[in-house]
Structures are given as structure tokens and as C-alpha cells.
């Protein structure tokens, strides 16, 4: 998210300039106009994953008041933000005498936009 954060900062600064220009104005036109308006066209972006969505300590002892119905080891933290998910299918053929082998077919199903 760091690069996107930096882009968003710059785009925010460009917004007043963009509003003064025609709809068809390119980024070059807007950047030029912003430069002459003395607007900072550089930005440092930063991202830190939400505190509740990362950090796991294997050595953490179970607290006394930990609820019984909560999953085992969940008091140690939140190991991952999310899971990537997928499935794969493969069909292979070998020749037991020569050791020759080939992949006849592979199908991969991946969930995501990344």
C-alpha cells in the first residue's frame, strides 16, 4: 500500500489544479500547471498492516482468563492477514524403463485479483 499511499497524496495535491483545467487535460498538463503553482510533486508513502491482523508469538503462555470456546493457540496472536487460495490439477506420464516423463496436462485455479 506504500506506493498507492504516495500516489494518493500526490493526486490529492493535484486535485485543485485538475479542477481548474479541462476534462481532457493529461497528467503532463496537470503536472506542469502544478509545478508552476509551486505544488510538491513528490511523496513518501508508508504502510503498516493493521495491528490486529499480524503478529504471532509461539512462546506466549495461555492467559488465565482466556475463553474456553476460542480456538487453541489463538491467544498467541494473529499469524496471517489472510490466506491466498487455490487448487491445482495435474496429469503425468512416465516410462518406467527409460525414466522419460512428461506432464500431460495441468490446470490451475487461483482466487484473487493480485
Amino acid at each position, binding site marked *: 500500500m506504500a506506493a498507492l*499511499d*504516495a500516489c494518493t497524496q500526490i493526486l490529492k495535491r493535484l486535485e485543485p489544479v485538475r479542477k481548474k483545467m479541462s476534462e481532457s487535460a493529461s497528467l503532463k498538463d496537470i503536472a506542469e500547471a502544478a509545478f508552476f503553482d509551486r505544488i510538491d510533486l513528490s511523496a513518501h508513502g508508508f504502510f503498516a498492516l493493521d495491528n490486529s491482523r499480524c503478529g504471532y*508469538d509461539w512462546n506466549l503462555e495461555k492467559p488465565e482468563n482466556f475463553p474456553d470456546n476460542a480456538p*487453541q493457540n489463538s491467544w498467541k496472536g494473529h499469524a496471517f492477514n489472510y490466506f491466498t487460495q487455490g487448487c491445482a*490439477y495435474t496429469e503425468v506420464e512416465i516410462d518406467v524403463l527409460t525414466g522419460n516423463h512428461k506432464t500431460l496436462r495441468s490446470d490451475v485455479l487461483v482466487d484473487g485479483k493480485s
Partner: protein
Amino acid sequence: MYSEGQSTPFGMIMGEQFAGKWNVPTMFEKLCNAVDYDSRCRDVEEFNAKHKYKKRGINILPTKFGIAFTAKYMNQGGALVHLYTDGTVLVSHGGTEMGQGLHTKVCQIVAQAFEIPLGDVYVNDTSSDKVANTIPTAASSSTDMYGKLYSVLGVVNVDFKCINLMIAMVYRNGGS
């Protein structure tokens, strides 16, 4: 295979609010149907019965992979973006490019943000004079940290229904 509501040994529950929507069982079924798994298994058995020296194997496998560093302090990243008056953009970020395509992804994200062609986005070699105090480029988390977070939980206003399920035929030759 985990089903919705089950917990991992490290205490993460498969499900919406905890680890994101759990799609693998649906995907598994979808792939089984798409490749016609049962009849292919029969074909393979038949082939193996007929052929003495050529043998076929078949498998279908679900997968999940957790994204984040377990060390909390490592879940951070920085980037530096310059916009030039010729309309081009230069981006530097804390991740290392080692053939995995991270620079390409970050450039694509920047191009999308500014709504400019990818050719107008340039990337600098990773260096501590651009982005200081970086963490290792590992744990499959660099696109999330340096580019854009694509996870369903990390982004606000994501329509859960529009998660794309895509089938990619990656490799096929001489199949029966």
C-alpha cells in the same frame, strides 16, 4: 481440507471476519467438475492396465498460503513517488526485485492510480537512500506492502461477490 469455521493449529478460523472468505472447498469442487476428474481417473486406471511400461498419474490438490510476517514489526513498508512535469512517474520502494515481478506489479499499481500508460512509469533500483529501514522481501507480502493490498479484508468497499475465479490452462501437451 479445512471447511468453514474450522481452526488451524495456530488458531486462525477459516471464515469471513477472521481470515477472509474461505473459497477453497468451492474452488476444489469447481476444478473437479471443470476437468472432469472422476472420468479422468478412470481413464488413467484404464491406461495403466493396458500399458506395461508407461504409467500415468493424476492428482488434484487444494492450497492455501498465509500472508504476513509473524514478527509484527516486519509488517511495514515504504515507497517514494516522484511525478515529473513531462507526465512520467518514478517510483522507488523497499522491496527487492529478484525475478518475481515485484517491480512490474508496483509500476502497474502506480500506472492505475495515475491513470497513465505503464510505459510512463519508471522504477528505481531498491536502495536505502530512497526508502530507508526496509524489511526482507519475503513472506509473499511485498505486493501488499509496497504496492496495493488486494486481500478482501484489507481493502474497504470491496464487493465480496466480485472476487474473480479464473481458470488458467497453463500447460498441456499430447494429452489424451
